[in-house]
């Protein structure tokens, strides 16, 4: 009797469970903490409420490198998530992992969901497509590097509160700011992303051969050109004069600007939200400076941020759900919601137009600067983006060599020569591992 009841309970429980399973779960691992995470969960909830068949479950897995590592380990153990948010430097590694991922274009085509790569900004499409133009991952949160100035500090130094357009003007302003007793004149977040990667695109010079690595794994770095050397030695010189304060390899520069310590700063467009909250002074967001004697400069800047990769080895029904979710994410109003809430760039033309029509940019001057800088000119082979294998390691190498140059341990030429030499070794290793 007792046993019977127990069996009945079990049966009921199993029934309930199988009923719950009728809704297919889509696992989404991401790296959006704090306010960004809330905005991301908002997107998932909106999708889950819009239909009954699928349920997107979001999991915060730590920083970008951490969630990528977690996903790699999960894949090796056979339980990877459906969707993984991967930062831009991991792109080449993901692309090379043919058995581990499913190209987004294929997921969408198989599920017969509409998907038009041309709807995205060309700098975005280029970054995440293979040589044949197939979109491999789904662009999600994109930003770019911007130049911020502290108007109050400029006025105090007797300068007009207008951002310097060229590096010559930056140096002139730096002299004045320093003379006026400004403790930290200029600082930067993400030194390699700003002063090597975006610097190259902005001046239309290659970061590496084979279209910055997009044309094949047999690419080599070319960041020791005379222009690169000149730029890095200029920064080293500024550091020596106390006009450039090195803040670290990630976003440590953000706080140095928003606290008012530094008068000029280059950092992610995504830094705006934090500055808005913390800064007790008048500031502006501007295009990054360029060397005015370089032909064709300024070109356009390249994106940073992350895209969504679809992992392999799942059931066909799951992929239909993934496709549905991505179709949902592609909607202009969803994109606008994400863009205005987070400060990331509107990545489709339609969402950009929609945001402009909504009057958001009139109310938030400067909010469209990043997208204008990204689309400043039609991208060239040098400014489409970059794709280097093991670039997590490669970027570390570049940053180490930059640190040596900024600390005055090496001159700019030998630091960049060493960066190229060490970077190329990493590229060869990657090439050999992915033959």
């Amino acid at each position, binding site marked *: 009797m007792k046993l019977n009841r127990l069996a009945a309970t079990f049966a009921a429980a199993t029934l309930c469970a199988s009923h719950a399973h009728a809704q297919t779960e889509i696992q989404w691992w991401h790296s959006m903490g704090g306010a960004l995470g809330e905005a991301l969960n908002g997107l998932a909830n909106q999708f889950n409420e819009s239909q009954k068949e699928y349920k997107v479950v979001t999991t915060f897995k730590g920083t970008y490198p951490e969630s990528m590592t977690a996903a790699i380990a999960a894949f*090796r153990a056979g339980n990877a998530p459906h969707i993984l948010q991967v930062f831009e430097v991991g792109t080449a590694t993901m692309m090379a*992992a043919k058995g*581990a991922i499913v190209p987004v274009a294929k997921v969408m085509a198989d599920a017969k969901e509409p998907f038009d790569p041309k709807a995205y900004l060309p700098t975005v499409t280029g970054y995440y497509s293979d040589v044949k133009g197939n979109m491999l991952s789904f662009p999600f949160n994109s930003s770019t590097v911007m130049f911020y100035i502290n108007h109050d500090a400029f006025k105090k130094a007797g300068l007009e509160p207008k951002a310097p357009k060229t590096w010559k003007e930056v140096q002139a302003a730096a002299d004045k700011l320093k003379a006026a007793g400004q403790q930290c004149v200029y600082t930067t977040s993400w030194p390699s992303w700003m002063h090597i990667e975006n610097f190259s695109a902005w001046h239309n010079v290659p970061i590496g051969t084979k279209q910055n690595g997009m044309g094949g794994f047999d690419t080599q770095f070319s960041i020791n050109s005379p222009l690169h050397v000149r730029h890095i030695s200029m920064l080293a010189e500024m550091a020596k004069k106390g006009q450039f304060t090195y803040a670290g390899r990630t976003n440590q520069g953000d706080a140095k600007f928003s606290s008012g310590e530094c008068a000029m700063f280059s950092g992610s467009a995504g830094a705006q939200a934090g500055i808005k909250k913390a800064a007790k002074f008048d500031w502006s967001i501007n295009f990054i400076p360029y060397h005015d004697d370089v032909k064709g400069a300024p070109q356009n800047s390249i994106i940073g941020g992350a895209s969504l990769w679809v992992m392999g080895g799942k059931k066909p029904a799951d992929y239909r759900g993934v496709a549905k979710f991505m179709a949902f994410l592609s909607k202009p109003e969803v994109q606008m919601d994400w863009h205005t809430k987070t400060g990331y760039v509107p990545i489709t033309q339609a969402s950009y137009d929609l945001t402009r029509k909504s009057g958001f940019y009139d109310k938030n001057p400067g909010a469209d600067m990043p997208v204008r800088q990204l689309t400043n000119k039609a991208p060239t082979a040098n400014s489409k983006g970059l794709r280097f294998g093991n670039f997590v*390691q490669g970027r570390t190498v570049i940053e180490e060599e930059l640190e040596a140059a900024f600390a005055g341990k090496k001159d700019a030429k030998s630091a960049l020569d060493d960066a190229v030499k060490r970077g190329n070794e990493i590229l060869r290793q990657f090439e050999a591992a992915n033959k």
Partner: protein
Amino acid sequence: MEKRVVFRSAWLPYALVAPQIAITIVFFFWPAAQAVWYSFQLQDAFGLKTQFVGLQNFAHLFRDGNYLASFQVTAVFSVLVAFSGLAISLLLATMADRVLRGALAYKTLLIWPYAVAPAIAGVLWAFLFAPSIGIVTYMLRGFGVDWNWIINDNQALALVVIASVWKQISYNFLFFLAGLQSIPKSLIEAAAIDGAGPTRRFWTVVFPLLSPTTFFLLVVNIVYAFFDTFGVIDATTQGGPAQATQILVYKVYHDGVKAADLGGSSAQSVILMFIVIVLTVAQFRFIERRVQY
């Protein structure tokens, strides 16, 4: 005469050590064997393609000047950590040994930092020395010192050494104090009667009698500097600036976990394992002979 327990049963002693052996096999021998196996392979991040490359990973490492530089950093770092850690705690232990009133309070306070996790110790010191907001930075600036360990390599090394030493002092202190208290008072009194001053008494009587403790602590501290300081470094400098604080074990982590280069990282851990074996054997064979028990 040594006392020996003799087991009558043939299997009982083995059964008693079996759990220990099993744990060693699962948590040491097995992973170590895997590291050796991976060190001969070249693999992509996801483990989809694996090639056997022989000693290529090792050859690659020894061609890399920065890997060799990492050896130097590790050596300097370990010597600094072990030496200053031992010296400071010996001084503190000698002082605490003399205190009569409130000795317990002193000892407890000195032992406290041991309860702090290495990563927390790192964060704590990083805050004190933070380039923009640190209180020590502020004071140093008053003395005209431009403190920015984000870019200055010597300052970065100083920071991780200070944090690591601070964390380890309690442990050393505890052992030194126990060692000091086990030295018969009659010996010291005899030396005093013979007219030896405090300094002479310390170096000729106390220090030699402490040598077993010192030797033990030396081994422990070097192993600590090699491996356990990982948390301190990860929480503060992350190996920078320009590899100034990139000790061997941190590079293993960076290349293996962050950069997903399993082969290269395994080759490094095999080398590290080899170094530790050599160091330990050397310490026990050569230094121990000169230790007076």
